[in-house]
């Protein structure tokens, strides 16, 4: 209360100087809380009126702002949701060659559960792609990991029957232009992901050859990812997230192959 009294008093003081009173007493006046009654005139009525009008103004402006924002949100919400679905669908169809439609599967422990439509809530999901006649063509799996600048998000397509990576796309990256952006521009690096070997071993619970990250020019095997000169950190980061994601998700996909194959929308 003391504080607010001081505030009103200061307000009154500013009003007074603006109407031409002397400016020399500012330090003394603004410093003293509750001393306003000692000053002459009728400060009390001015204070309460301007305080009320301040509150009223902020209230009206806030209400107006709220109205505008809610209106815009209502108008654009559906469009934004469709944009997101469209963006995801485009990426899925790009990493699963031959696919024309897709179905979202929610990961639930060791099972995959098909969903209708594309949910807007977060969750671990994979996206199965089907061609025009409903034949299963592959699964798009999201992976993410820390790059040089920020988290890199990729989406890669796999054919769980053949045990091969069939497509790769970077969804989100803030890597340095001209250097780290080679993870989606370098032709040799991109070619690695066409036919990368992710077959399972006999138990079906692990990869026969876990992915390996090697130096440029040393990748002789089908399960090795060569880093890029000039983008070592970024390309290693992509390699690592592919390592983790394939080791975790390939057995899962193989286990649920029936559900994936029969999930055509």
């Amino acid at each position, binding site marked *: 209360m003391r504080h607010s009294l001081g505030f009103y008093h200061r307000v009154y003081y*500013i009003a007074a100087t603006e109407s031409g009173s002397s400016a020399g007493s500012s330090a003394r006046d603004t410093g003293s809380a509750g001393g306003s009654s000692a000053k002459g005139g009728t400060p009390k009525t001015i204070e309460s009126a*301007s305080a009320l009008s301040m509150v009223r103004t902020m209230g009206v402006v806030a209400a107006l702002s709220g109205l505008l924002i809610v209106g815009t949100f209502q108008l654009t919400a559906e469009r*934004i949701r469709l944009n997101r679905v469209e*963006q995801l669908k485009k990426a899925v169809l790009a990493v699963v060659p031959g696919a024309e439609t897709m179905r979202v599967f929610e990961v639930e422990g060791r099972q995959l559960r098909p969903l209708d439509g594309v949910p807007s809530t977060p969750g671990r999901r994979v996206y199965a792609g089907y061609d025009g006649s409903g034949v299963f063509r592959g699964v798009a799996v999201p992976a993410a990991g820390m790059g040089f600048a920020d988290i890199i998000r990729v989406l890669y397509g796999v054919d769980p029957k053949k045990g091969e990576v069939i497509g790769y796309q970077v969804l989100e990256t803030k890597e340095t232009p001209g250097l780290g952006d080679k993870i989606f521009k370098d032709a040799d690096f991109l070619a690695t992901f066409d036919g990368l070997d992710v077959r399972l071993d006999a138990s079906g619970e692990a990869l026969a050859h876990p992915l390996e990250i090697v130096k440029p020019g040393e990748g002789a095997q089908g399960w090795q990812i060569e880093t890029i000169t000039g983008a070592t950190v970024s390309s290693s980061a992509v390699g690592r997230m592919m390592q983790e994601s394939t080791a975790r998700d390939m057995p899962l996909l193989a286990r649920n192959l029936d559900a994936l194959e029969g999930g055509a929308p």
Partner: protein
Amino acid sequence: MSAPATTDAFLKGLWRENPVFVYLLGMCPVLAVSNSVINAVSMGLASTFVLVMSSALVSLLRNFIPKQVRIAAYIMIIATFVTVIDYLIQAISLELYAALGAFIQLIVVNCMILGRAESFASRNPIGPSILDALGTGVGFTVAIFCMGAIREILGNGSFAGIDLFGPHFEPWIVMILPGGGFFVLGALLLGVNALNQRRKAADHG
């Protein structure tokens, strides 16, 4: 500041009172999102939208807002239109939204906008206020576009994504990195100031 002629309210923002080249306002987006023409122009247009809408509303409410809470009220109005343009850009294109990143939300602290609200819109009727905001916004857009064009052409060999020089062009990568923003801004300011001083000398001599 007495009320100037309406056309002058618009024109002064383009050169004589250009927010970027003369007042050095809004440097944060100018340096950060001018690495390509598309980003630069989108940022310029988004800022212009916020500038015009908030100037109009501030001008409409100018007799209603008490002096003591004016800054708080202006910021609230500006933040509202920033939120509006944020949703609109998401609705237009998610790729553009991702490219502009945090800088859309940061329009709210662009001092150019608060500056126009405080020094012009709060003292003038709605017509001149809109023209003043439009002039300043166009001046800002032109400035950030110049930056974007220079940086993209030198740093990436392209203009608005269209390849200009073919595959043998060796891009001057530093130009699209943050450092390049400072180089280009410095060079442009040098040019603008040299031109203005020569003009002034000619007027006096």
